[in-house]
C-alpha cells in the first residue's frame, strides 16, 4: 500500500481504538472471557489479541486457550502442538513487536481427545468403569461425532483451568461450529443424552441402578434396530451405554456448576463477527440467545471492516465520472499529458465503486449491530488479521 494510504489507515485505526476505549482494560476484571461467533470470522486471532490487550492493560496472568489455530497464528504465539503445556509469550518478543505488557500471557491449544478421556476418568465411579469405557470402540466415535462434543470438551477444560486458579483471566476461543449456540447448550445436551430414557431402553432397563442383559425382542424398536444393524453392533452400543450411565450423576452435577460459571459476573462473552450477511445473522442470533440464557455479553468485535475512505462522497463522484463519462478519457489525456485508455479509467472507477457498495452495506450492518446490546463495539480493519508474526497480533491487540 502507498505511504499515504497507510497513513490514512493508521489514522483510522487510532480512532477505532478511541471508540472501543480499551477493550483490554474493560475486560481485565473478568476471570473468563469467551469469544464466540460464526466460523471463519477470525475468532482465534481476536481471542489471542484480546489476551494480549488484557495483559497490556493490567498486571494479570492471562491464558489464551485456543482450539484449532491457523498454523501461522500458532507459530506467532509459539504454540508447539495440540495438548502441549501452555507456552509463555516472552515479554521481550512482545516489546520488540511494540507492545509492553504488565501482566503475563500464555497460550495453549486444547486437546479434545485428552479432555474427553479425563472427563471419563473423573466421572467414573471406579477406575475399572473408566477403563471399560475408554476401551470401547464406540467411545471414540461418540466423542468425535456427538453434536457439541468439542464444545463440551472446551467448556470442561475451561472449568478445570478456572478451578485451578493458576490464571487471573482465561480467554477461550470457542470451537468452530455450524451453530455457535452449541457451545451454550453443550452441558445440557450431554446431560440429556446420558440420562435419556432412550438410553435406558437401549441398555435394557434402568441400568444406572443395575445391569440387565439386553433383550432384543423386548420392543419393536430394538427388533428393528437389530435387523438394521445386527446383534454385534447392538451389544457394543448396549455395553457402552450401560457404562456411560454410571457417569450420569457426575456429569449432571458438573453441568450445573458449568452453567453457574458461565452466568457468573466474573465471566464475559465477546461476540466476534464480520459484516458479511451469514456471520452477521449468526451474531445477532447469538446475542439474543445470550440474553435469553442470562449470560453476560461484554463486547463485540467486528472484524475485517472496510475503511471509511470507501464511503467518501468525493471519491464516489470522481469514480462515477470515470466509469460513466465517455469524454473523460480524452480530457484526462489532454489535461494530464498522459495516454490513458477508457478501460484504464473505468477500472479505477469501478474498483472504487465496488468497494463502496460493500462499505455502504457494512455501514448499515454496523448501525444494526450497535442496537444489539449496550456494549462496546471494536472495529478491526480489513486485512489486519492475516497474522503471521507476533507484531501482526500486537497491532490488533492495540487496535482493540
Amino acid at each position, binding site marked *: 500500500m502507498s505511504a499515504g494510504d497507510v497513513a490514512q489507515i493508521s489514522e483510522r485505526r487510532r480512532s477505532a481504538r478511541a471508540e472501543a476505549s480499551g477493550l483490554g482494560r474493560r475486560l481485565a476484571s473478568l476471570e473468563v472471557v469467551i469469544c464466540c461467533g460464526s466460523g*471463519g470470522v477470525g475468532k482465534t486471532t481476536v481471542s489471542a489479541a484480546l489476551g494480549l490487550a488484557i495483559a497490556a492493560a493490567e498486571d494479570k496472568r492471562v491464558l489464551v486457550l485456543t482450539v484449532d489455530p491457523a498454523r501461522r497464528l500458532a507459530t506467532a504465539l509459539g504454540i508447539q502442538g495440540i495438548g502441549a503445556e501452555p507456552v509463555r509469550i516472552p515479554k521481550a518478543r512482545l516489546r520488540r513487536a511494540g507492545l509492553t505488557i504488565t501482566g503475563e500471557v500464555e497460550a495453549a491449544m486444547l486437546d479434545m481427545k485428552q479432555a474427553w478421556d479425563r472427563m471419563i476418568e473423573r466421572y467414573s465411579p471406579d477406575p475399572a468403569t473408566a477403563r471399560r469405557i475408554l476401551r470401547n470402540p464406540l467411545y471414540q466415535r461418540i466423542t468425535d461425532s456427538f453434536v457439541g462434543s468439542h464444545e463440551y470438551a472446551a467448556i470442561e477444560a475451561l472449568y478445570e483451568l478456572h478451578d485451578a486458579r493458576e490464571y487471573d483471566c482465561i480467554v477461550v476461543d470457542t470451537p468452530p461450529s455450524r451453530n455457535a449456540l452449541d457451545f451454550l447448550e453443550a452441558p445440557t445436551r450431554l446431560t440429556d443424552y446420558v440420562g*435419556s430414557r*432412550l438410553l435406558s431402553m437401549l441398555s435394557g432397563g434402568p441400568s444406572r441402578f443395575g445391569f440387565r442383559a439386553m433383550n432384543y425382542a423386548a420392543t419393536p424398536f430394538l427388533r428393528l434396530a437389530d435387523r438394521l444393524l445386527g446383534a454385534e453392533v447392538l451389544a457394543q452400543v448396549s455395553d457402552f451405554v450401560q457404562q456411560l450411565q454410571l457417569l450420569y450423576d457426575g456429569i449432571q452435577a458438573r453441568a450445573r456448576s458449568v452453567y453457574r460459571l458461565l452466568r457468573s459476573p466474573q465471566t464475559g462473552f465477546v461476540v466476534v463477527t464480520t459484516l458479511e450477511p451469514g456471520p452477521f445473522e449468526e451474531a445477532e442470533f447469538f446475542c439474543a440467545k445470550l440474553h435469553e440464557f442470562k449470560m453476560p455479553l461484554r463486547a463485540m468485535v467486528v472484524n475485517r471492516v472496510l475503511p471509511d475512505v470507501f464511503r467518501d462522497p468525493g*471519491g*464516489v*463522484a470522481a*469514480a462515477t465520472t470515470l466509469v460513466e463519462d465517455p469524454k473523460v478519457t480524452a480530457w484526462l489525456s489532454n489535461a494530464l499529458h*498522459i495516454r490513458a485508455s477508457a478501460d484504464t479509467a473505468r477500472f479505477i472507477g*469501478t474498483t472504487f465503486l465496488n468497494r463502496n457498495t460493500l462499505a455502504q452495506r457494512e455501514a448499515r450492518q454496523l448501525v444494526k449491530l450497535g442496537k444489539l446490546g449496550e456494549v462496546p463495539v471494536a472495529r478491526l480493519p480489513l486485512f489486519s488479521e492475516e497474522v503471521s508474526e507476533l507484531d501482526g497480533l500486537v497491532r490488533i491487540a492495540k487496535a482493540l
Partner: protein
Amino acid sequence: MSSPAGTPQRSWRSSTAVRRAIAGERIELATLLARRVIFVAGKGGTGRSTMTAALALIGARAGKRVLAIDVDAKGDLAAALGSPPAGFAPRVVQHNLSVLELRTDESFQEYLHIYFKVPRVTRLTPLARIFDFIATGVPGPRDMLVVGKIAYEERRKDAESSPVWDLILVDCAAGGQVESHLAAPKAMLTLVKGGLIRAQVEWIDSLIRDSRRTTVVLCALPEEMPVIEAIELNDRLRKRSGVAVDLCLLNRAVDVPVTTAHRRLMAALIDPEHAEEVARRLGGSPGPLEAGIDLQAHLYDTTARYMRQLRGKLPMPVVPVPFIVDRTGLTTTRAVAEALRGSLA
C-alpha cells in the same frame, strides 16, 4: 470482485506461471456435467451453496434434469436458487431444476419405508430418536441415510423407465461431514457382513467409487484456513472413500491485476499540480480512489498466493470464481454461473 460488464476480464491464464501450472489439467464443463452425482464440499462460508446452485443452473441450462440436494437443511441452497425452503420431497424451482432438503427424521422414515416396507406413520419420532442415538455411536447409519437417499434418487426411474434425474448436485454439510458421508458405505461393509442391508450398501459404494458417475468439487476462499482445509479434505477423501475429486473452486477470487497503466493514471490523477482541475472535472477528489487500487492489488496478490498453494497441492484444476459484489440470492447465483461457464467451458 466482479468484473463489470465491459471491462475486459484478465484471467489467471494470462500469467505464464499460472498457464504453465494448469496446462493440460482443465476440466471440460461437459465432462463435469456428464457425471451423475456431484458433491460440493468445503469449509463453512466458502460459498458452497452458491456454487452448488450455480452448477445446478448451468446443468439445467444445458438441458439436464437436475436435482439439487441440501444436506444441511438450513435453506441456504433453496435461497441461492431463489426458492423458499424446500422439503424432503423435491420442489421444482424452474424448468429442469428441483431442490430438496434432507432431514434425519424424514430420511429415516423414507428409508424404512423403501427398504423395509415399514408403513409411513406420522409419529415415528421416538424411533428416529433411537436411531439418532445409535447413529451417533455407530459409524455409518446416519451417513448411510444421506448417501442412501442420494443413491436412491440417482436410481429413480420415471414411467418410461428412464432416470428421473440426469444430474444430482449435493450441497454437503460444512466441514468434514462429507468425508463421513462418503466413507460410510465402506465402513458399513466392514460392519455388516450379510443380510438385507449388505446388497444395498454394495451398490451405493460402487456408485461413490465410480469416477465416471460420482465426483467431488471442493470450495475454498483466498484465506489461510479454507485453503488448508480444502487441501486436507482432498487428501482424506481420496484415502478414505476412494471418491474422485475433480475440481476446486476458489471463491471470491480477485482475478484482475492492477497494471502499470492503472498506476500511472492513478498517480496522474492525484498529482498535486492538477488536483483542483481534476477534482472539478470529475466532480470530486480522486484521492480516495487510490485506496481502491491498493486494495485491489493486495487482494489480487493474496488470491494469487492461494491459487499457487492450491495448484501446487491439488492434482486437479483450480478455478477462480470472481467475487460478486452487489447482489444476493438468485442474482448472485446467476452471475456466478455465468463466470463459471466462462472459466470452465
